[in-house]
């Protein structure tokens, strides 16, 4: 009995170890069987920007309800990941907060058409004990605060444009995003445009070499630090400020008006910049012209390959993009995104013909 059990155990053990060896030696079957034969559901994989995640999943959900055989998946992995996966072709198309410049595009094997989807903005938030008013910021003041040149709240650069507010002499603690993010890109892109010194010393990217200040992880990290640290200032996405009822300041735009970031003033920034778009949506709309334009606004993008090996899939993606640019825009505002102005929608629609 005992030896029988032993034998059984030995046989079993051999079987297991043999299976183990087979699994570890053979490559996983690389399946590309997800072809879309008619009738079967079509699965479209998209990945990228975390900023766009709420509206993208809303669109995908609504589009799926209207087209039961189409299923779109979104991986909220970050813009960098979205660009990488589009390049390697592991997703059907990607999403990014930064457009691809020509240098990056040259590293792609396929032609990529870029579409704007919705818009957002970055706003300055602050925590000054005793001050509950909405502060006004000039571009120079913002740049000099983050350069470490304006160090106290009662500095004339700030107090000068806020005559009604009694500002204390507390030392300013600038807070920035420690993680790399599209928000930082927009913020530093804006500061680079309005301050030559910022452009020369720091520049713009998803993360930069900050001259002064503290870093917080994510919007919640920045707002948490600002809310806890007296005399601090930080920057967060408009959508985050709206959802969390955060007090934020107005910023002087290129027309010299102090504009509060709202969905309307962000859309106005895109409308002001639409004239510069000629079949290329990759323009920065920070410090855009226009009386009512909020100056720290941005687009977020879809990166779509121009050709699809699977024609049926290509048709569906084209249809989805058309829907997203027209009917889909109505879902943006309730989620805190600014919808595209009509002029920009038209330019995007004309780009659709570049897809095969």
């Amino acid at each position, binding site marked *: 009995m005992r030896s029988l059990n*032993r*034998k059984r*155990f*030995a046989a079993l*053990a*051999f079987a297991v*170890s043999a299976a*183990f060896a087979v699994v570890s030696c053979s490559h996983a079957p690389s399946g590309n069987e997800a072809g879309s034969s008619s009738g079967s559901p079509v699965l479209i994989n998209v990945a990228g920007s*975390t900023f766009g995640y709420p509206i993208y999943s809303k669109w995908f959900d609504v589009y799926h309800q209207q087209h039961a055989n189409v299923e779109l998946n979104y991986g909220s*992995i*970050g*813009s*960098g*990941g979205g*660009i990488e996966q589009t390049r390697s072709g592991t997703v059907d198309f990607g999403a990014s907060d*930064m457009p691809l410049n020509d240098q*990056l595009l040259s590293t792609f094997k396929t032609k990529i058409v870029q579409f704007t989807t919705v818009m957002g903005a970055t706003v300055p938030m602050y925590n000054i004990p005793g001050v509950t008013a909405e502060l006004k910021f000039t571009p120079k003041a913002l740049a000099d605060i983050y350069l470490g040149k304006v160090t106290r709240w009662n500095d004339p650069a700030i107090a000068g444009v806020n005559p009604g507010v009694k500002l204390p002499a507390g*030392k300013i*603690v600038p807070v*920035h*995003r*420690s*993680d*790399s*993010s*599209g928000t930082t890109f927009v913020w530093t892109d804006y500061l680079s445009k309005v301050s030559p010194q910022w452009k020369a010393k*720091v*520049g*713009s*990217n*998803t*993360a*930069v*070499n*900050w001259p002064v*200040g*503290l*870093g*917080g*992880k994510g919007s919640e*990290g920045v707002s*948490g*630090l600002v809310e*806890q*640290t007296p005399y601090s200032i930080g920057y967060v996405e408009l959508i985050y400020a709206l959802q969390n009822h955060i007090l934020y300041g107005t910023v002087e735009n290129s027309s010299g008006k102090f504009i509060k970031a709202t969905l309307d003033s962000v859309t106005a920034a895109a409308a002001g910049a639409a004239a510069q778009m000629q079949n290329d949506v990759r323009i920065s709309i920070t410090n855009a012209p226009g009386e009512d334009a909020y100056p720290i606004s941005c687009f977020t993008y879809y990166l779509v390959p121009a050709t699809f090996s699977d024609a049926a899939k290509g048709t569906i993606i084209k249809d989805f993009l058309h829907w997203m640019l027209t009917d889909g825009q109505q879902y943006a505002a309730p989620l805190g995104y600014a919808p595209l102005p009509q002029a920009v929608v038209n330019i995007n629609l004309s780009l659709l013909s570049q897809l095969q």
Partner: protein
Amino acid sequence: MGASAETLTGKPAPGGKGQVRTFFRRLRNGDEIAHIFTLVFALTILLLACLLVYELYAHSAVSRHKFGWSFLLSRSWDPVLERFGALPFIYGTIVTSVIALLIAVPLGVGGAIFLAEFAPTKMSDGLTFIVELLAAVPSVIFGLLGIFIIIPIMRESVDPFLQSHFGWLPLFQGPVYGVGFLTAGVVLSIMIVPFILSISREVLLAVPAEQREAALALGATRWESTWQAVVPYARVGILGSIFLALARALGETMAVTMVIGGTPSISSSLFAPGYSIASVIADQFTEATGQAYLQSLIELGLALFVLTIILNGLARLLILATTKRGTAH
């Protein structure tokens, strides 16, 4: 080659057939199977470690070629100009881990001595259970704890206290923000105490009762027997628990990221914001643009791996040294 051919074809080597038979008998007994199995498992772990190093090495080629050894000594971290250096991150990783150990070792070892030697068994088991639960709390929870509870306490009470009493030390000078090396070290210490306490207690409990009895019989007090007979006996195990805790502190990511201040700087002040290797990778990997940027982050991972190996090696040397001294008694 010749020898083996001879044994196969030539005279039937006396041991040959017997050895084969022994092998099959052992196979049937399960000894060989256990041997093969455990060997495979051990090799798998080794293979994983090698693969990890290879991947880190291979994917940091651009960064390694661009910066060379100066990567380890450079203090700049500029994604715009694509100039990257690891020194502030290495500094931050070591400083926060050392602070964590300075707090956690007395707390953990002291607690373990109490639980193993002085506390009633029921209380000891109950408390140990709770402490071990701490080890299972996800680190992001410790990060939130840090943001909402520890940072305000540090900024309003602990840091000003240290500054007013020990402000003559460069360690406690400069502006106080609440986030920084010291806060990160404190949060880390809370996270690693359970490891030290739980393992040390087990090790102390495993000390033979004769060890205590002998000391007591020689007229030692309870504390003398604990400190001079029991703890030295368990020393290697306690050191082992401390090194496990150190490894955990070096690699901790989320909680540190949330409280360290996210600034790649080297400052003598513990109040200053800093950065650690694991945090900067977690922070910047997803949205890193450009090959040099991405690969510098991967090279940082390689640096952390090497740093861990070096510190582990030093730990082993320390164990070796103390063990020798112990046997000389």
